[in-house]
């Protein structure tokens, strides 16, 4: 099947790297959007690592997901430095605007809202990360404007 061929190609790219499973899963997730049982079975077959072990790794790390997610992943930080700078108000506004709780995806499939641990951007707290972009010094209004922009244009702005 086509999926297995893609997995094989990804695995082959790491043949010179010792214990590359995390890199492989990252690339596989990039290719397929999430790590489904089918895809993980393909990784197990290609790498000869037991499926149970691979599943264990795929569910351990927060950047991996075994379920489909929205087109954009919104990661909000609510650790102490963001907390004392008002991240709760920001998060509440985002939840209200998107109509979802953390861990959920909007019905249209555009956004998945997640909780993240500290992103190391505390001098511009509170912060969030949308896909690969970081946004700091957030207020509820600013966060909403950024999300609106993603919704309208379907792209990021710096």
């Amino acid at each position: 099947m086509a999926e297995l061929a893609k997995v094989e190609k990804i695995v082959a790219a790491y043949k010179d790297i010792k214990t590359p499973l995390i890199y492989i899963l990252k690339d596989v997730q990039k290719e397929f959007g999430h790590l489904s049982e089918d895809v993980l079975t393909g990784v197990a077959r290609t790498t000869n690592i037991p499926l149970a072990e691979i599943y264990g790794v795929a569910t351990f790390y927060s950047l991996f997901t075994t379920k489909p997610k929205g087109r954009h992943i919104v990661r909000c930080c609510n650790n102490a430095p963001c907390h004392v700078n008002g991240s709760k108000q920001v998060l509440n506004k985002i939840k209200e605007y998107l109509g979802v709780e953390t861990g959920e995806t909007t019905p249209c499939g555009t956004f998945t809202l997640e909780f993240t641990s500290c992103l190391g951007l505390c001098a511009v707290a509170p912060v969030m990360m949308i896909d690969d972009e970081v946004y700091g010094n957030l207020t509820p209004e600013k966060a909403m404007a950024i999300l609106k922009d993603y919704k309208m244009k379907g792209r990021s702005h710096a």
Partner: protein
Amino acid sequence: MHRAHILIAMDAHTISQGARTVKDALVRSLSLAGLTNEVRVVETGSLGIYNKGVVLVVYPDAVYYAGVTVEDVADIVSEHIIKGRVVERLWLTEFIEGKRVAYAAVPPRFSKQVRVVLRNAGIIDPESIEEYIAHDGYEALGKALTAMSPEQVLQQVKESKIQGRGGAFFPSGLKWEFAAKEKAEQKYIICNADEGEPGTFKDRLILEGDPHAIIEGMALAGYAVGASEGFVYIRGEYLMSIGRMRRAIDQARQHGLLGENIFDSGFSFDIEIREGAGAYICGEETALIESIEGKRGEPRDKPPFPPSVGLWGKPTIVNNVETLANIPQIILRGAAWYRALGTDACPGTKVFTLVGNINNPGLIEVPMGITLREIIYDIGHGIPGGKGFLLAQMGGTTGGILTAEHLDIPLAADTLRKVDAGLGSGAILVVDDSQCVIDLVKCFVEFFNHESCGKCTLCREGTGRLLELLEKISDGRGKMGDIELIERLATTMMSGAFCGLGQAAPIPILGCLKYFRNEFVNHISNGGCAMVDTKYAMAENDLAIA
């Protein structure tokens, strides 16, 4: 030859404030003015200034401009670059003894900073190996490989008394010695760049500001202990750090500073990057090793410790980014020079990240022994909104709690230990007196509960039960006796959890209970937070102003 250089700090913080668009506008504007060959725009690492928008520095005049927007760029070019006049409204200055002083001219006794680790950040282009070399870069490696034996390098590090900057403050020289004594065909050097302690971003900015210093430090470690391979384990979320490090490694290879037979000395060393995938626990050294091995990042039983049995079963040194960035300077300038910095028991400088309710948040490097008062009020310019100081949490979310009575303790690993705190990862979270302590403790515990790896029962279940108890108290459902239950649970976790995460998680909880027990009691007897009404009213006000 360029007659002027404009430096713009380009790191993950400043990009979120619009540094990239300002830089692009600047390049465009210079090109329109026909100045591309005369003025060079350089992306550099952190300048350590974060509450003033996009900051850039014009050299040779050393004029700092703050709050620069795309609209301001034309003025900087036409006024400063063409006519040589400083753009007053953007000029970054400080008031010292009543006089306006240019930021670059603030004397060290006022700035209080001593830059060893951050000596190049904000000065060189981190994507240029030539600039690093021009600032004594790779000179220490050259000196070590051509004029020193591995034993001599190890001896210098031992004599410097440098202690691990990841938070444990274990003597690095001793750790190296353990690995050096092991007989093995292969040994490994790992740079722990899995920075995840809330409030900490020093490693991020060292990686983004001076990546070659880390490569040089790792190569020196490899030479000292007999390792030929190194790994930099960087958090998967730190995309910019990964990019800068990758580029630096490629450049070092091209220049023959990594690879086979470096400086014709017979010593070979190479470095590979490994990315994390989102797990706080991987900052624990054995969990990190598991993760490089492609497994779940769960900590291992110790002993054996990594210097004897580490990555793929081989002797391995795991050092923090900041520790490694110190090493080239120690080798170049000698152990005695290093020991003269800081305090006798805890030499050197410490890179801190100053965050929370503070006017001037950011990245600072100061000698050990400085007081919290100096950091908060002199460097940090105090607490915003005229509010009072409630507490500071030292070293991240696992860190101890300091209150007003501790403002004048000299900060060092040994002095803080006496008050149940530590320097930890170097984060200093300043909290003002408008914050609810229970809310804050709940926030700490939410973090631990989220990040507990699930391996041992005490941490997995303990963090969950603690969170339930705190939610109860916070919601006004708390009962007398809950506080004692929290204490019992916390002390049990401290003595019985498998690794540092579960052992350290209770520290800030017990710290807050020690200094703010009344707050807990009041929440229980009043059925919730008395601050809630005023706090939300204030939050609404803040929003209206914003």
